[in-house]
């Protein structure tokens, strides 16, 4: 079986700064894979490199058996879509939800836009009432739902999720995580999800990779984390930190 995403010894360099130093990973079709680490660990850069948003210096990325070049073609974006962290910054402030959702459809030449927009909005639980609103008229959770609808409207098979809930309140976070799980089950999607929160990753993903300063620290199953079978100190520190504050 060909992997949905195969990354081989990927290096990303910004000017002289090595953001990724030869990171490899394989994500199987239908799998949900998590990337965990602190800020600056390169987890978001890895995601952005796959989406074609970071300067790849070395290594290769293969999506659904197809090796990616320096430029991504339209067919790639039909397969792979991304949801960004900040729902306030990732929606065009002067476009209505309807206009936002039409954009990808127009780019890819879909004729049945009307039907698709309605279906996408229903799928993320927003309904038609939100269709002609601007993003400033929506709450953070609703905006993130629009961002998810925009990603799903092209019916991709892979979703790249960059901290999709870290800007949201805990209760809204639960709703968005549930929505993501539901669409994944229904559409048999592959997820590659970035988060700094181990609890979210163990909840959403079967396998995960811990990253630190541009390198992979260790690969784990979600069960390993639950039973605390970790080998590296760095991961142990992250686990301890997620338990909350302990008075010395």
């Amino acid at each position, binding site marked *: 079986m060909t992997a949905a995403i195969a990354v081989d010894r990927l290096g990303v360099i910004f000017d002289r700064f090595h953001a990724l130093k030869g990171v490899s990973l394989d994500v199987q079709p239908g799998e949900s894979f998590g990337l965990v680490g*602190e*800020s600056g660990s390169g987890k978001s850069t890895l995601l952005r490199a796959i989406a074609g948003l970071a300067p790849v210096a070395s290594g290769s990325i293969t999506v659904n058996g197809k090796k990616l070049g320096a430029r991504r073609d339209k067919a790639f974006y039909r397969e792979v879509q991304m949801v960004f962290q900040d729902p306030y910054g990732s929606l065009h402030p002067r476009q209505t939800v309807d206009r936002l959702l039409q954009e990808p459809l127009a780019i890819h030449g879909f004729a049945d836009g009307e039907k698709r927009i309605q279906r996408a909005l229903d799928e993320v639980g927003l309904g038609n009432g939100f269709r002609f609103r601007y993003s400033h008229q929506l709450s*953070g959770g609703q905006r993130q739902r629009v961002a998810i609808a925009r990603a799903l409207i092209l019916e991709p098979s892979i979703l790249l999720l960059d901290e999709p809930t870290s800007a949201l*309140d*805990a*209760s*809204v*976070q*639960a*709703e968005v*995580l*549930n929505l993501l*799980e*539901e669409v994944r089950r229904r559409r048999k999607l592959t997820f590659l999800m970035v988060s*700094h*929160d*181990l*609890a*979210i990753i*163990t*909840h*959403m993903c079967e396998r995960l990779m811990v990253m630190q300063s541009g390198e992979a620290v260790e690969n784990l199953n979600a069960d390993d*984390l*639950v039973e605390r079978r970790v080998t590296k100190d760095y991961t142990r*520190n*992250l*686990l301890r*930190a*997620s*338990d*909350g*504050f*302990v*008075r*010395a």
Partner: protein
Amino acid sequence: MSTLLDVEDLRVTFPTRTGLVEAVRGVTFSLGRERLGIVGESGSGKSQTGRAIMGLTPPQARISASKLVFDGIDLLAASPRERRTLRGKRIAMILQDPKYSLDPVMSIGRQIVETLRTHEKVGKAEARDRALAMLEAVQIRDPARVFDLHPHEVSGGMGQRAMIAMMLIAGPEMMIADEPTSALDVTVQLDVLGILDRLVSERGMGLIFISHDLRLVSSFCDRVIVMYAGKVVEQLKASELGRAQHPYTRGLLNCMPKIGADRHPLPVLDRKPEWAA
């Protein structure tokens, strides 16, 4: 326990185009030399409560309270001049993101010295020494180097330590920390909390810790106030959080994913209109 701050029926109202909006609606609590957590979601009025105590409410808003007393001083009756001498000197506030709340064009050391010299008559050399000592107290390894750096040259954790140093240098008796660690990485978060915890208990300060993270607050504070829609829905000891009565508090605790708890889908909060009543 001596009471440092007494708040009774605090209300903060904002005039908007569509009428008055009450952000804080009758909040009552008191603070001794302890760590008090205020928890709630965005829009619950937790930050506005902190700002009203500090005197940082925007001028167009109206504040009313039957009691807002800090150490015998009626804050609502105090003149702006009196409030200014309190602010920074006896009541300090740590803000969320050091990237936005430190002055970007002033070195960290100068900002700390400025705070000190606003409130105390000290010479330049002594102010510098005290600022360096304070930077050391917040566990900055090379204080002399950091003293001359500008905020954009340091990491988030370092910036937040500098902010704590700046707030503590005048020796306040009460500290309001508004989401002091939300912008930081989890491991750095714990370091900063550790520093805050040590300094607060060493100096016997009263701390109001405002956060959206119920679990973090319960592991850090002695007492927790839970706010919803501008009101206090529950007050309880942090150790007894597991026995919370109010459905909102329980819902908030419940909806967070936990390592080891296999719950699909996650329980979501079913908001009842009567909570806000």
